[in-house]
């Protein structure tokens, strides 16, 4: 059976940028259908579909919605996480720039399901083009009565706003995002309470990724059973966007049934850049431990990748050929996490700094044999010891370097130089 793109079917079609065009392409049917249903029935349908969060954690979207308390004593919010900042990830930008109404429709259905009357789309500050496209789509949707005091004439009131971030990876973390939305430094909160109970402005809040919400209209129009028929098994369902970059011939965002083998994905991206040889790849963005070339046949779904000792994360696949210095690559990722650590928790703030310093030293051939153990020690002090997942994310690539690619690190130590072609390393500290 050939797979027809679902989320990206309108990509490259300028008609999708207008409300009229989007409707002609079948848009807002999911929302019309949803408005005739009981809100709880929508949550059940999304739960049944098996849709898992596409932002990184892979948590059941329907279950998340079901945590929102019923009743009207407090306002409720949806915050759409469009703060796409995980290095290697560029799929949400594609969805927003090419099919903005698909996202607005997904947001509107979610809001109706949890009875939230306000939605903020928190978009990273650098995505000015996507923000402008979304603003135009919002304006059209308001003018046509798709949003506002009575969504499609149903009597359901919904306001939707774009909120631009200002350049901080940590604001992609749920509670860091809420702090930032409230006008503060984006430092994650202590949990519990979880956002479903105490979220934005002290009220129950759902936070979902762009791609997650874009799946929702299709689940409504085509049903949970159709959605479940795509994918590896009942826990890994639906279409999935994979953002492939690095040493491949045709980097880009590709849509496949979740669980496509990495080898097939690589072939479809034109194979290795300039005919190189695969050395290693990162299956799910900067936070995901690196996998060796031997894992080329791995199925790219949440559970299979986790079993292999990494994570699907945001499905940002970074491919590296045999000319790549992995010490240098991990040093670069560590520099990123050091820069982006919000500084609130000591293990993460201090640990990410030391990891970067150690890896730079190793990269330049100034490392010592004991540095491997030292890195693992730092990892064990960071892991599980900070408020949010950034610390855990930071140790992923480092641990995989020491555990899986130690001979390469050792070569740097033994030869007291980087055995790969030398390039300048940019930037100091932050």
């Amino acid at each position: 059976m050939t797979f027809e793109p679902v989320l990206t079917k309108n990509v490259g079609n300028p008609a999708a940028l207008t409300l009229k065009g989007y409707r002609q392409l079948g848009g807002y049917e999911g929302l019309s259908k949803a408005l005739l249903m009981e809100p709880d029935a929508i949550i059940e349908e999304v739960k049944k579909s098996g849709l898992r969060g596409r932002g990184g954690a892979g948590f059941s979207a329907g279950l998340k919605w079901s945590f929102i308390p019923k009743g009207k004593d407090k306002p409720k919010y949806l915050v759409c996480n469009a703060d796409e900042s995980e290095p290697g990830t560029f799929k949400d930008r594609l969805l927003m720039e090419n099919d903005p109404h698909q996202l607005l429709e997904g947001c509107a259905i979610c809001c109706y399901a949890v009875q939230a009357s306000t939605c903020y789309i928190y978009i990273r500050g650098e995505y000015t083009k996507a923000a402008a496209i979304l603003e135009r789509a919002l304006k059209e949707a308001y003018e046509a009565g798709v949003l506002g005091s009575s969504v499609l004439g149903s009597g359901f009131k919904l306001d939707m706003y774009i909120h631009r971030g200002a350049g901080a990876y940590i604001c992609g973390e749920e509670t860091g995002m809420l702090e930032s939305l409230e006008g503060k430094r984006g430092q994650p909160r202590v949990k519990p309470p979880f956002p479903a109970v105490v979220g934005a402005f002290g009220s129950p809040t759902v936070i979902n990724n762009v791609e997650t919400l874009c799946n929702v209209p299709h689940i409504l129009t085509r049903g949970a059973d159709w959605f479940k028929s795509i994918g590896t098994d009942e826990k890994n369902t639906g279409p999935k966007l994979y953002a492939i970059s690095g040493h491949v011939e045709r980097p880009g965002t590709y849509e496949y049934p979740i669980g496509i083998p990495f080898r097939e994905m690589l072939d479809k991206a034109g194979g290795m850049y300039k005919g190189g040889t695969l050395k290693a790849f990162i299956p799910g963005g900067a936070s995901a431990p690196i996998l060796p070339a031997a894992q080329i046949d791995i199925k790219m779904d949440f559970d299979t990748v986790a079993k292999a000792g990494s994570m699907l994360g945001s499905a940002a696949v970074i491919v590296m050929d045999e000319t790549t210095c992995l010490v240098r690559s991990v040093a670069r990722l560590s520099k990123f996490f050091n820069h982006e650590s919000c500084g609130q928790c000591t293990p993460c703030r201090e640990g990410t700094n030391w990891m970067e310093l150690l890896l730079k030293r190793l990269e330049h051939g100034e490392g010592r044999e004991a540095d491997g153990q030292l890195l693992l020690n730092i990892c064990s002090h960071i892991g599980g010891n900070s408020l949010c997942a950034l610390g855990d994310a930071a140790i992923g690539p480092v641990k995989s370097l020491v555990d899986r690619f130690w001979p390469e690190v050792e070569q740097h130590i033994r030869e007291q130089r980087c055995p790969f072609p030398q390039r300048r390393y940019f930037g100091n500290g932050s």
Partner: protein
Amino acid sequence: MSVSEPKVTSPGLPPAAKAELDEVRKRYPTTEAALLPALHIAQRAWGGWLPDEAIAAVAAELDLPTSKVYGVVTFYDLYHQKPVGRYRIRVCTNLSCQLRGCEEIMETLHEELKVPEDEVTPDGRCSYIHFECLGSCDTAPMMMVNDDYYENLTPERVRHILRGFK
């Protein structure tokens, strides 16, 4: 004992910026929530950066302590506390761009503009800085100039782009 904040004289937000902010404020249930958009607006009004008087103007407008606004400004990478060039260049140097040659892009900028990273050319035209992932890894290496993305760069293309910046 009370600690007083240093006083900064500020002309306040220009009328157009104030009008824009008044519109944006309506979106939020608290005044404080308008702080990030307010800083974006102020930064535009002050030519791409936030001098103390801009920070003071935002603080006064939203009735927030200056220290609180300052704390937010220093947290986020897109707010600048020193002048930037009319063309503000951010080069992505994260892993995907590193694998495809972002170093050459940084080197080319250095050679052509003849100023160190994060300093403005004497004519006020350009400044450049390395940046974290800008979400355009499929077109690596890439850079962002003001609000626009320039993708699939080569040193030659960078030189050509710079020639177009007046």
